[in-house]
């Protein structure tokens, strides 16, 4: 068994179809919906944490892609652009769970497994080096 976070993007024509159900029925996957929304262009986005056998997860992802659904592996809903980050530390001020912290040599480190997705770091970053994936 393994657990994985994936971000699904549904094109306009797929929105409304019960694709995720197939993951349960055919591929025996458990999932947790972490975030879901449909934008103004009726494109859907779904952030799932899926649990199952590795081969089933891979087959499920292939199935989704065959149905024109974008699948992206996600570690965390925020990403730090290392080219923009200067390790000032302003983001660590608002990260209550220590997902963003300074190392002993004062570089910024991002422990993406600790992130609670409050998104305050996105606002706190003066370099705008942190962006939300969804």
């Amino acid at each position: 068994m393994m657990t994985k976070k994936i971000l699904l993007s549904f094109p306009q024509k797929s929105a409304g179809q019960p694709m995720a159900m197939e993951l349960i029925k055919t591929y025996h996957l458990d999932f947790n919906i972490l975030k879901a929304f449909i934008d103004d262009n009726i494109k859907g986005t779904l952030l799932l944490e899926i649990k199952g056998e590795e081969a089933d997860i891979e087959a499920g992802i292939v199935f989704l892609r065959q149905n024109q659904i974008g699948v992206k592996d996600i570690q965390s809903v925020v990403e730090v652009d290392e080219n923009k980050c200067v390790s000032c530390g302003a983001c660590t001020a608002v990260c209550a769970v220590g997902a963003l912290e300074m190392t002993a040599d004062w570089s910024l480190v991002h422990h993406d497994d600790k992130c609670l997705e409050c998104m305050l770091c996105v606002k706190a970053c003066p370099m705008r080096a942190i962006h939300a994936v969804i």
Partner: protein
Amino acid sequence: MAKSYQEINEKIARGEAVVVTAEEVIGIVKERGVKEAAEYVDVVTTATFGPMCSSGAFLNFGHSDPPIRMGEITINGVEAYGGLAAVDTYLGATQPSKDRGIEYGGAHVIHDLIAGKEVHLVAKSQGTDCYPRTELDTWVKLEDLNEAYLFNPRNVYQNYNAAINGSSQRLYTYMGILQPNMGNITYSTAGELSPLLNDPLLKTIGMGTRIFFGGAQGHVSWMGTQFNTACPRDDKGYPQTPGATLALIGNMKEMDPKYIRGAVYEGYGASMFVGVGIPIPILNEEIMAFVAVENKDLYTNVIDYSVPKKAKPTLKKVSYAELRSGSVDINGKSIKTSPLSSLKMAREIAEELNNWIKKGDFFLQEPIQSFPMGNSLKGLEIKEGESR
């Protein structure tokens, strides 16, 4: 044994100067003592890389044909000052753009220019006999300009407050986001590596001092605004509150975009991260003793930024060693501390300046004038009445 600027410069020219950073020197002084260390070390490099709002650039665009006397000027949508001569302007770092607001301000334009990007220049004028053109819309790069130099009226603060929020609302400040109910503390310093904390009485840093400025060799051009050498000090002379500041000047065409960056403080405004390195010549034992200072001996005040007054209450006096430890105890509660200026980049700058000096690419400039001590700050009185 005292050394002169000239003697140190001769050693630099021969490639014999001993140059160390202000962090490295601490161990050397502990090991050898002040007297021996003062003879051994010639130059100590200090540096900082943090947000410095009072920054900006003088630009000269050259004349178009027919020429224009630029009045209203925008660069990438950011307004620049039109009150100088025809094609001169000053672009302030914190000026927000008309389309993107604080997300893209003067500092971002300055960064983009230094990075070699083309920027959109739009200017308007009433038109005059000598400058008939009334409108201009073009694209320029840094290399197209006649002159482009940063002239920052207030940089490298000698010490600064640490910030906390005693209210029940989250605050968006130039000291970053402050969580309610004393949720966090922010501070902005390079501490024992910071330029002006290593020369607390400005014995070697004055008008004309050559510096590392945004990757170029620049100069200290004047005392900075809000220059407060009359600040409270400890018995050795180190400021306990914001003290001296410097006005800096340097050629943008020689700068590196890595060291000059646009910044955004949510709910506050645009600012600029400025990389500055200042060499301190070890002329005598007194100066060596000053640069040996450690974070545990440098203090600042934790100030409550939720009080909307000029005089904000001080909650605690703390050392930079305590702030760097990750938490500070206030009224029995452990409160998380976070930096706002990049020590990592400051270290890189101190090393870079160190390399320049060792390679003989950078020589010390003795100040042509020292700055006044005992200079205090004035406030602004709001006077009643419409006419006087």
